[in-house]
């Protein structure tokens, strides 16, 4: 696998950036052909910073400031069908407003990247972080990558292009960070040299670009019942091929940068009896709690899901099959389902296991609600109690809720 040159290793930069600016920095290096966006808290800073790069002539991007998110995604669809490398940024109500065009993007197999600063959905109106927005679009045919911190946001944005544009995938990818916890928190991270990023993502070769007037092609034809199912089955091919490509791109990126990525990340899972499954920023807090608890003799571990779509059921089952009790933390309500979206996936993934662990679900952090370390510690202590007594108790509960 290709390694970075010595000169490139020397020109790595350690910089302090917010999560939003980490994504904007990746976008500067990627230099997409088109970015169409409409500002929405807490992702606004990505677009603001990128607009400055455009104004300063640091990128060649055609920046389209649209009148709404629906228009932003529509402009992205047009630009991608035209043959461009395309990106947008949004979250929350903005993502909800894009909804009908999200399915067009994935149905037309347009490889684009969308960064999301996760935020709650109305009502009540709330601008703070939770995963309700991307979870509401979890079955729109997009690949979902969740980032723990600014570094992962930067790394995922770069890798997302390689995943989306892979000829066997050709499916749009969203890169999510936790609103405010990651989008507005300043962290020190490594920024790779421009030429390394440029080489890694490579020249974009569009397939069937509409601007190739010598080879006309029609996008967006109608289907009657005699063809719709065949087209939806053919769309699934990208999703089925995605896990292998996500892992392969994560390995290649690791060889170049020293930071390797997979579908999931395990933390102290080798001998863990009690595990938490969680996505994004909270994984960082959980790691801290695990280190404390390990010193107290609690065999705690973490399984962080990076790729939520396609869901890595095999990896999740393999990792959790050795444990005795598992708590899945969902930063999203149940909406009347049997639990949060992550919980449903994890529990289903364990159904084939001969002796699956007990699995419970916690809803946490809605609308930016803090999750102090002691609450995470309480979860592990309850997991240990479940393993000891065999009594599971309440299946779905809330963390840090007044009641």
């Amino acid at each position: 696998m290709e390694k970075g040159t010595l000169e490139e290793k020397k020109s790595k930069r350690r910089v302090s950036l917010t999560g939003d600016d980490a994504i904007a920095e990746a976008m500067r290096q990627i230099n997409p052909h088109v970015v169409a966006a409409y500002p929405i808290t807490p992702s606004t800073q990505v677009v603001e910073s990128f607009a400055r790069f455009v104004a300063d002539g640091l990128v060649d991007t055609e920046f389209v400031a649209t009148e709404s998110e629906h228009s932003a995604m529509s402009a992205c669809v047009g630009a991608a069908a035209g043959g461009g490398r395309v990106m947008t940024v949004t979250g929350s109500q903005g993502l909800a407003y894009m909804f009908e065009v999200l399915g067009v993007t994935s149905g037309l197999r347009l490889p684009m990247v969308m960064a999301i600063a996760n935020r709650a959905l109305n009502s009540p109106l709330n601008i703070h972080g939770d995963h309700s927005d991307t979870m509401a679009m979890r079955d729109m045919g997009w690949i979902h990558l969740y980032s723990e911190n600014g570094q992962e946001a930067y790394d995922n944005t770069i890798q997302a292009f390689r995943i989306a544009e892979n000829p066997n995938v050709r499916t749009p990818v969203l890169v999510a960070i936790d609103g405010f916890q990651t989008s507005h928190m300043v962290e020190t991270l490594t920024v790779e040299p421009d030429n390394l990023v440029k080489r890694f993502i490579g020249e974009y070769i569009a397939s069937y670009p509409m601007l190739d007037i010598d080879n006309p092609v029609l996008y967006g034809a109608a289907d009657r019942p005699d063809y719709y199912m065949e087209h939806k089955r053919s769309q699934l091919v990208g999703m089925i091929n995605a896990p292998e490509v996500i892992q392969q791109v994560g390995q290649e990126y690791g060889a170049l940068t020293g930071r390797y990525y997979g579908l999931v990340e395990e933390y102290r899972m080798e001998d863990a009896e009690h595990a938490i499954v969680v996505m994004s920023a909270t994984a960082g807090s959980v790691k801290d709690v695990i280190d404390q608890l390990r010193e107290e003799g609690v065999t705690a571990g973490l399984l962080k899901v990076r790729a939520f779509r396609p869901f890595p059921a095999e990896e999740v089952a393999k990792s959790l099959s050795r444990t005795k009790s598992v708590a899945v933390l969902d930063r999203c309500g149940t909406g009347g389902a049997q639990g949060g979206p992550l919980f449903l996936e994890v529990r289903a993934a364990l159904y084939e296991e001969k002796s699956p662990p007990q699995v419970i679900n916690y809803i946490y952090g809605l609308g930016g609600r803090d999750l102090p370390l002691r609450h995470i510690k309480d979860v592990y202590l309850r997991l240990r109690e479940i393993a000891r007594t065999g009594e599971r108790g309440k299946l779905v509960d809330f963390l840090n809720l007044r009641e």
Partner: protein
Amino acid sequence: MKKEKLKKWQELPIGGLILDMGNSSETQTGDWNPNRLVWHDDTCTHCLLCWINCPDASIKVKDSKMIGIDDYHCKVCGICVEVCPTKPKSLEIISEEVA
């Protein structure tokens, strides 16, 4: 009427794209309407008003003469029957049961 051959999902271009331009003629629209259009060549004067007005190019013409109906595409909308000037009409819609 020959039957349209339906493709398997593996045979379809990515993203539901249409790569061969002008392939709409391959789509069988003739079975959308259970009724049938018939042509009476004994009263037809070959004025071609039906050909001018047909929205689906389903009136078959050769050497400025009408020669028949393209049943594979004709949706039996009835416009040709409306515009046909002969008495009795040279084009007629017959119901599913009779057809």
